[in-house]
């Protein structure tokens, strides 16, 4: 029965609408009052029945629902024989719900498109080598699957046969196709644009990177901010209170019509749906561009951010330092060989750059090596003492530095280099300058952040103060601090928070995790790795820096939209309340009309967010296209996603 009503709800709505039209025709064209009343009574019953049924279902699970208020209102109108009003109220309520469903589907379309990136079925290899079509739910790890040109990749796995190019925009936001050959990883939710491959499934269903993204977005869209929880609690008691109020007013005034009107006007509508609907549209828009907000609380906080702190290496720069200059004092070659020997055993990021630079040199055996925290390495190689590190290390070992050397070091540092000094047996032999390129477009992105109202842009780095100052000046950052350890950075975040600032921290997700966790908003530039997804409040699926101002602009737009919706909802309630008390034209039919209308207005307002694109984004589009070529090699980083 309930099912039949649900299924035919739209038909019943239409029938009651038609009956109402006929009733007015009967009244005005044929002057038949009784005919009109009969038709309106029929319309009220047909429209009221599904509403009453839902109200009853809700009551059974102990929920006083909005359907109950409307049902009582319709019954009340019957008692005072206002069939016209009861019919219109029932119809508008049903029709409004229909429109809500249609428009809500639109606000959710962004996430729906995402979900549909994963195919429903896959081609699995059978024991005799053929391929059969199976449901996605039936796949297991280890299955061999066939994907053809244009096909959607169903699982996370590895290419075991064939080659092709894949578009991974759905998980990285980067639409440049990537080559896929034997042994390369592929991801569920991405598209094989070219070629035919067989893949061995490693993760299926919810376990895939894409599955996790979907779950994250779904949870985020329904997560509630404090304000929303308040509204929720409010609306839970609100409906019974309205019911009680109507009864009291009815008893005191002995005016059933007034009581019934209060029931209709009291329906919580736009207020309940206004904020969540903005939230959904904003989060959906972000997800499509590779920006994931973990819930509406995050949007609210991020939109109010006044300080953003950046890590340098890997955040403002590509995180891929290279040797740019070498100053030699003394014989050179031997010192270089000793340096390579020491660096081969180190895991420091600069060590990799140095061994890469001296690829051809053969390493000697390192007899002993010891790390001096914050200084560098002290090693014994081929009977010599070798120091590799910074100025602090040299000073500790009383290595003499001449005026000329001093000048060289100064020059290297002021050109933005990180310094690695090498001393053999107490004499400075080498000074290496290493440079890490700044990401393309970072300067414009930082300027955009300032324009969006961020007051302080801080650079926090473990690098020397000179380098840090130089980068800060070049990029237009407001403050820059060098020589910081990860815990110092977290301390910085804490200090600024204590001063009343809302702080966002942008880092690489691994060694900056204390700061990311401490900040009000943590943003990890981890190209969608598990760690980045877990530690961040805002996840940037694509490592590209321009998503940060985009994310902020979107957060601000979403927040604005929420405030608009709350304002609309409250204004409507106020107008209705005042007019029911102070005017003679207000009745329950008009009340229902305004009520349903306001719900549609807030949904439509939220829908604007779906199409939202920041001004910045529009103007950057051109530049971006030019850069995508240059950024090519860095797409490789995406392949390391797990």
């Amino acid at each position, binding site marked *: 029965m309930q099912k039949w009503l649900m299924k035919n709800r739209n038909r019943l709505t239409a029938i009651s609408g038609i009956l109402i039209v006929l009733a007015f025709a009967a009244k005005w064209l044929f002057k038949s009052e009784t005919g009109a009343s009969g038709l309106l009574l029929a319309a009220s019953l047909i429209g009221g029945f599904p509403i009453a049924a*839902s109200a009853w279902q809700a009551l059974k699970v102990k*929920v006083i629902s909005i359907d109950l208020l409307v049902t009582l209102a319709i019954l009340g109108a019957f008692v005072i024989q206002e069939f016209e009003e009861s019919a219109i109220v029932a119809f508008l309520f049903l029709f409004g719900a229909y429109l809500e469903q249609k428009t809500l589907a639109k606000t959710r379309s962004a996430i729906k498109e995402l979900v549909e990136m994963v195919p429903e079925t896959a081609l699995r290899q059978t024991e005799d080598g053929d391929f059969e079509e199976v449901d996605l739910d039936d796949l297991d790890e280890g299955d061999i699957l066939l994907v053809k040109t244009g096909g959607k990749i169903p699982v996370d796995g590895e290419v075991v046969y064939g080659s092709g190019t894949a578009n991974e925009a759905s998980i990285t936001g980067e639409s440049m196709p990537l080559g896929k050959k034997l042994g390369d990883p592929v991801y569920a939710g991405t598209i094989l644009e070219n070629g035919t491959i067989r893949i061995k499934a490693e993760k299926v269903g919810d376990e895939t990177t894409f599955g996790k993204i979907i779950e994250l977005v*779904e949870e985020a869209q*329904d997560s509630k901010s404090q304000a929303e929880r308040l509204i929720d609690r409010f609306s839970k008691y609100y409906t019974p209170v309205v019911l009680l109020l109507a009864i009291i007013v009815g008893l005191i005034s002995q005016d059933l019509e007034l009581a019934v009107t209060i029931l209709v006007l009291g329906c919580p509508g736009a207020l309940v749906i206004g904020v969540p609907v903005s939230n959904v549209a904003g989060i959906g828009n972000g997800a499509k561009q590779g920006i994931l907000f973990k819930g509406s609380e995050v949007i609210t906080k991020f939109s109010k951010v006044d300080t953003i702190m950046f890590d340098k290496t890997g955040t403002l720069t590509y995180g891929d330092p290279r040797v740019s200059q070498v100053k030699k004092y003394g014989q050179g070659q031997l010192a270089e060989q000793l340096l390579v020997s020491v660096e081969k055993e180190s895991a420091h990021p600069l060590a990799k750059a140095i061994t890469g630079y001296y690829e051809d040199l053969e390493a000697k055996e390192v007899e002993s090596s010891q790390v001096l925290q914050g200084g560098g390495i002290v090693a014994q190689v081929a009977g010599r003492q070798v120091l590799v590190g910074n100025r602090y290390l040299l000073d500790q070992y009383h290595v003499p530095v001449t005026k000329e050397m001093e000048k060289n070091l100064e020059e290297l540092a002021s050109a933005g280099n990180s310094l690695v000094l090498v001393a053999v047996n107490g004499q400075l032999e080498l000074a290496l300058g290493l440079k890490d390129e700044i990401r393309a477009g970072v300067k414009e992105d930082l300027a955009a952040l300032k324009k969006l109202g961020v007051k302080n842009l801080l650079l926090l780095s473990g690098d020397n103060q000179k380098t840090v100052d130089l980068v800060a000046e070049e990029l237009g950052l407001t403050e820059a601090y060098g020589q910081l350890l990860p815990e110092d950075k977290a301390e910085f975040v804490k200090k600024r928070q204590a001063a009343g600032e809302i702080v966002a921290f942008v880092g690489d997700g691994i060694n900056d995790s204390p700061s990311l966790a401490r900040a009000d908003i943590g943003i990890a530039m981890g190209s969608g790795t598990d760690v980045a997804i877990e530690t961040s409040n805002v996840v940037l699926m694509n490592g590209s820096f321009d998503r940060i101002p985009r994310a902020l602009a979107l957060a601000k737009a979403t927040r604005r939209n929420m405030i608009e919706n709350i304002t609309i909802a409250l204004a409507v309630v106020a107008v209705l309340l005042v007019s029911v008390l102070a005017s003679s034209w207000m009745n329950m039919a008009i009340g229902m009309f305004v009520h349903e209308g306001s719900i549609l207005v807030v949904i439509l307002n939220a829908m604007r967010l779906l199409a939202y694109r920041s001004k910045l984004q529009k103007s950057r589009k051109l530049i971006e296209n030019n850069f995508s070529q240059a950024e090519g090699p860095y797409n490789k980083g995406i392949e390391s996603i797990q």
Partner: protein
Amino acid sequence: MQKAILQLETLACPTCMQKIAGAIANVDGVEKTSVKVLFNASKAKANFDPDKTNLDTITQAVKNIGYDVLKASAK
């Protein structure tokens, strides 16, 4: 404890959530505090004790109050 995930028909009114959450929480063997209805994803999630109830019973409870369950899974 197992976790049930139900894909529901598209939910349109926030009060539906209360009804569905209430219906699921009333099933004996469902952990009441774990019931979560995702309005936008139109999904319901809940932990349940497999010794006391099963996925079918939970699905039926939702269907009984008039909402269609498109897909149900437990893990």
